């Protein structure tokens, strides 16, 4: 499903070169739940940008669903993001003053899905994350945990190949964070591939596999035999 081989990312700022990723290679198979861990500056954000088709590598190849997307143009990348990636951001990134239903339907707007179909699907997804009674609430009327659940519903709108949560619990109280992780585990059980970026060990331990990054290199990549299941 995901093949990353010899990917490097070098940022050039004036005459200073910063190596964010140095010759990283790994594979992720369908149905895996991977946590990518590392301290700040380890390159995990850069890796997440490349995996999420927000950026392209300086060298190396990234193959997603058999499609090499390391050399695509802006609009082609936008299309990949739309169809194959389900982002969940740390800061939720919902459209302000816009009802939950419309926020969830937004990716389908760019895919050209007809309005009725969009809203029906968005409603189903919101019911699935337990917000069936908050369809018309705007983000400011929802708690952090609820906002993140709206964001998760949105990430599922286009049935993406991978879900890409980036520090999904960073802005949420601990109790609600557990609920969010429960949703991810449930989605994983249903067959969704999840690649989660986090720097918190107690969040990473919800995953089945953990990749440790340091200074742009993979220092450890192994199965997490003690995956912590959230009881529902």
């Amino acid at each position, binding site marked *: 499903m995901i093949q990353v081989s010899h990917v490097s990312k070098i940022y050039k700022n004036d005459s200073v070169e910063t190596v964010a990723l140095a010759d990283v290679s790994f594979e992720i198979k369908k149905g895996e739940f991977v946590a990518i861990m590392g301290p700040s500056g380890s390159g995990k954000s850069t890796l997440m940008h490349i995996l999420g088709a927000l950026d392209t590598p300086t060298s190396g190849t990234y193959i997603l669903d058999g499609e090499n997307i390391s050399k695509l143009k802006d609009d082609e990348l*936008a*299309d990949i*993001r739309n169809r194959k990636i389900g982002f969940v951001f740390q800061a939720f*990134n919902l459209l302000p003053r816009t009802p939950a239903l419309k926020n969830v339907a937004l990716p389908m*707007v*760019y895919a050209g899905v007809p309005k009725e179909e969009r809203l029906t699907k968005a409603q189903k997804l919101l019911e699935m994350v337990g917000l069936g009674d908050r369809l018309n609430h705007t983000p400011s009327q929802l708690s952090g945990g609820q906002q993140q659940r709206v964001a998760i519903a949105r990430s599922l709108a286009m049935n993406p190949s991978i879900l890409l949560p980036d520090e999904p619990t960073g802005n949420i109280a601990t109790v609600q964070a557990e609920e969010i992780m429960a949703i991810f585990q449930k989605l994983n059980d249903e067959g969704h591939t999840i690649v989660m970026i986090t720097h918190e060990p107690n969040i990473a331990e919800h995953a089945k596999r953990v990749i440790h990054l340091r200074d742009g290199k993979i220092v450890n990549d192994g199965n997490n035999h003690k995956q912590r299941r959230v009881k529902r």
Partner: protein
Amino acid sequence: MDFTETIIEAISTLTLNKLRTGLATLGIVIGIGSVIALVSLGQAAQKAVASQIQSLGSNLLTVSPGAQSAGFVRGAAGGSTTLTFEDAKALKDSPQVATVKNVSPEFSRRTQVTTGRKNTNTQILGIIPSYAEVRKISLTAGVFIGDKDVQSMGKVAVLGPQVVNDLFGEGANPVGQSVRINSQSFRIIGVTVSKGGTGFLNQDDIVFVPLTTAQKLLFGADYVTEAQNENVMTQAQDEVGYLLLARHKLRDPSQADFTIFSQNDILGAASQVTGTFTALLSGIAAISLLVGGIGIMNIMLVTVTERTREIGLRKALGAKKKVVITQFLIESIILTFAGGVIGMAVGIAASFIIASFINLPFTLSAQSVLLAIGVSGAIGVIFGWYPARKAANLQPIEALRYE
């Protein structure tokens, strides 16, 4: 996203900040409003001047003494005596001149007219009876100057309604009374119907006297000849020219000691003048429109900066450049278009009010309405393009990180 949805979304975004949207639109309202008002007032003025000139008769040729161009030294038109009463008779009777229906020699000067108590400075016009037919004059009281008066150099006068107002008061009937022109007493025999007009075109501020009498008082003569109809104007102009050249024993038309105008020449010159003024004023108004456009661009740039995170999110979720450009362009077009429509209403109202104040006919051309709508839409595109492109070219990573 289909088009109507995009528009609805843009409108709801714009209504979030009503004050800012209103102020941005105001610039366009003022710009479009002043263009519409000035163009329609200009057209009204043009129409007014044209209809005044045309009311003099559209099939008239005016022959004035004096060369068309005789270097720098030139007598004032009417100041020389190159045209005579005999020339006028010849124009009327000559078999060579087939297209001329009527000839009305006239002679005019401005001078003082008094009743002893009151006085006014007005135009004295020496004419023959056919003038009334050529110029389509009718009377409210009394009779017009007759052939007898011309032959006998009678001291009789027909007054324009303005002169009656000035000398005898509004609505008075002065027929039978007398006025003094250049110290000579004239008996008033008639009053003409008001024809309107202002300034040098005022056809009511006039005193008619027999041509022979006027020539005795002062010298020189103008002719007005009337062609059979408007279609033979050029032919009539040529015939009159050739006959007068022959009578004055001149071979070369460039030596002509007279000038022939048709009403169309005068109309052309006058509408050129008003047209130039209209263009000038519209140009000034267009500058305010430009300033309004820059205001729109400024607001759109602020909007793009404010909504950087939103744009980043939209792009991350799969919005292509074209979609982002469309979204922002539609917002700016709605701003300017709304401004254009309101501005049009304001402009029409303003020109209607001003026109009724200064007694101009109110005109509104479909052209200026279409122009306003077209221009305001175009301003939205032109000044919205750069901010929209800026939004579309934002990198999603940086835009998402933007605080």
